[in-house]
């Protein structure tokens, strides 16, 4: 999923106070799962804004709504369309994709981001999410026993650990981050595939990553 984190309240409030009526718009997919921008978080943020407005003597009317996905046009239905038109601005609790797609669907609307979008990751445990994929566009997890050095090594090294791997941890953040190459080594050892790590992996073709410019996937076979 796409993992995001809510911005500090003051930053979001600064968006809200520029308008008389705002709509806090949640998203029911990734950011609901990572507890950053689902229906529950929409309720909390809306109430925080109302309370802060009362305390600071600002007049802000706050509406709430959550749709299934902000990255899919079909979920921007009539109900949400009406609410967006009624509001002076939208505070989107979708990821960066959701915010932009909301703007694309409602070109007149002013849409602010309430979240900082972080990465593609997994839920490690309740309340903890970690990056697993860098979206490089050319998956080679087959070479590394299913552990990605592009996303999980601080220097995205393809040919083994740098000198900063110590006791299984990455020197960049030894408290919280495993050395991806320790994980790869352990995994390949278990699989009896250590020999494969002796191959020199050539320089990556980064064109499939962001370096090739904004990316797009087109599937003629499923187009309407």
């Amino acid at each position, binding site marked *: 999923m796409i993992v995001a984190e809510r911005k500090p309240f003051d930053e979001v409030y600064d968006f809200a106070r520029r308008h008389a009526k705002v709509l806090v718009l949640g998203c029911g997919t990734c950011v609901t799962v990572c507890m950053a921008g689902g229906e529950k978080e929409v309720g909390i943020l809306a109430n925080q804004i109302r309370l802060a407005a009362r305390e600071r003597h600002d007049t802000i009317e706050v509406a709430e709504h959550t749709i299934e996905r902000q990255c899919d046009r079909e979920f921007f239905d009539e109900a949400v369309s009406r609410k967006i038109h009624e509001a002076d601005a939208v505070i989107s609790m979708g990821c960066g994709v959701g915010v932009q797609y909301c703007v694309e669907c409602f070109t007149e609307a002013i849409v602010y981001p309430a979240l900082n979008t972080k990465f593609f990751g997994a839920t490690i445990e309740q309340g903890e999410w970690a990056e697993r994929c860098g979206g490089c566009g050319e998956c080679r997890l087959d070479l590394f026993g299913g552990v990605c050095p592009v996303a999980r090594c601080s*220097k995205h090294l*393809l*040919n*083994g650990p740098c*000198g*900063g791997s110590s*006791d299984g941890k990455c020197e*960049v953040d030894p408290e919280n981050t495993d050395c991806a*190459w320790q994980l790869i080594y352990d995994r390949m050892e278990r699989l009896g595939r250590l020999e494969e790590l*002796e191959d020199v992996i050539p320089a990556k073709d980064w064109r499939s990553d962001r370096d090739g410019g904004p990316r797009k996937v087109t599937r003629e076979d499923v187009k309407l």
Partner: protein
Amino acid sequence: MSEEALKSGSRLEKVLTSGQFAVTAELGPPKSADVEAIKQKAGYLNGVVDAVNITDNQTAIVRMSSIGAGVLAREAGLEPVVQVTCRDRNRLAIQSDLLGAYALGIRNVLCLTGDHQCFGNHPASRNVFDVDSIQLIQMLKDMRDDKVFASGEEIRNTKKAPIVEPRFFIGAAANPFGDPFAFRVIRLAKKVKAGVDFIQTQCIYDMDRFKQWMEAVRNRGLHDEVFILAGVTPLKSVRMAEYMRDNVAGLTVPEHLIERLAKAEVPRDEGEKIAVEQMQELREMPGISGIHIMAIEAEKSVAGLVEKAGLLPRPQVA
């Protein structure tokens, strides 16, 4: 060995290929455009070592470029080993800079991954790592031996122009003290496979672990395929030893060395004594072709160390 058989013709290459024990040192460029600082450090090292590594924004702190400082060191009579990290430049910039370095007389390059920028003075910067150190070795070898850029294009101005390729003596680092330990020899083997000519190791304090690593290196015959220069950094104080132990990932400083420094009347002298002992021990170790002295901001002390280790005078090469 005839000139044609040499890859780069550098002094370091000649010393090593003629079977002589090499000594290299390190010169950290200034954190400014100060030319005098380089001249002064070069003065301490002139005639004392075979070549001098010029570090590339070491510990991710901005300094004069290793190529610029390398050219100045060369003008001051030293033979530079220009260090190149993968942190700050992509394959275009590295190849272009190294064409320039070669044109300016640089003949040795050390290929490094590079410290992460979070440790330096620009932690907010973006890192590059377009290629890694092993891919960088391969790139320089392909430029020298196949006369092509990383793209496969020939190194010439036009289709009819002559090929003018940069011919470097290619070095890399090895850290026998990082984890996973078993991968450390594999990584050296990969560097050899990629085409490295010489290796300079991380500074050695844990001699037992180093011996263990060297044994694995010899078992694979890697010492016959690459010249290995063992890294030595003299300890100046107990504080420095503890700092290295606690803050440099993968580096262990054995307790008995710290004790020696603590008991010594002049810890700095004791640190130099330890370094000389290490140099003498490493010199006798099978598979070791030289010593690389990294006296951090203590270039002045190198001459004394080399002399006490019985490594002076340095060989003359044609």
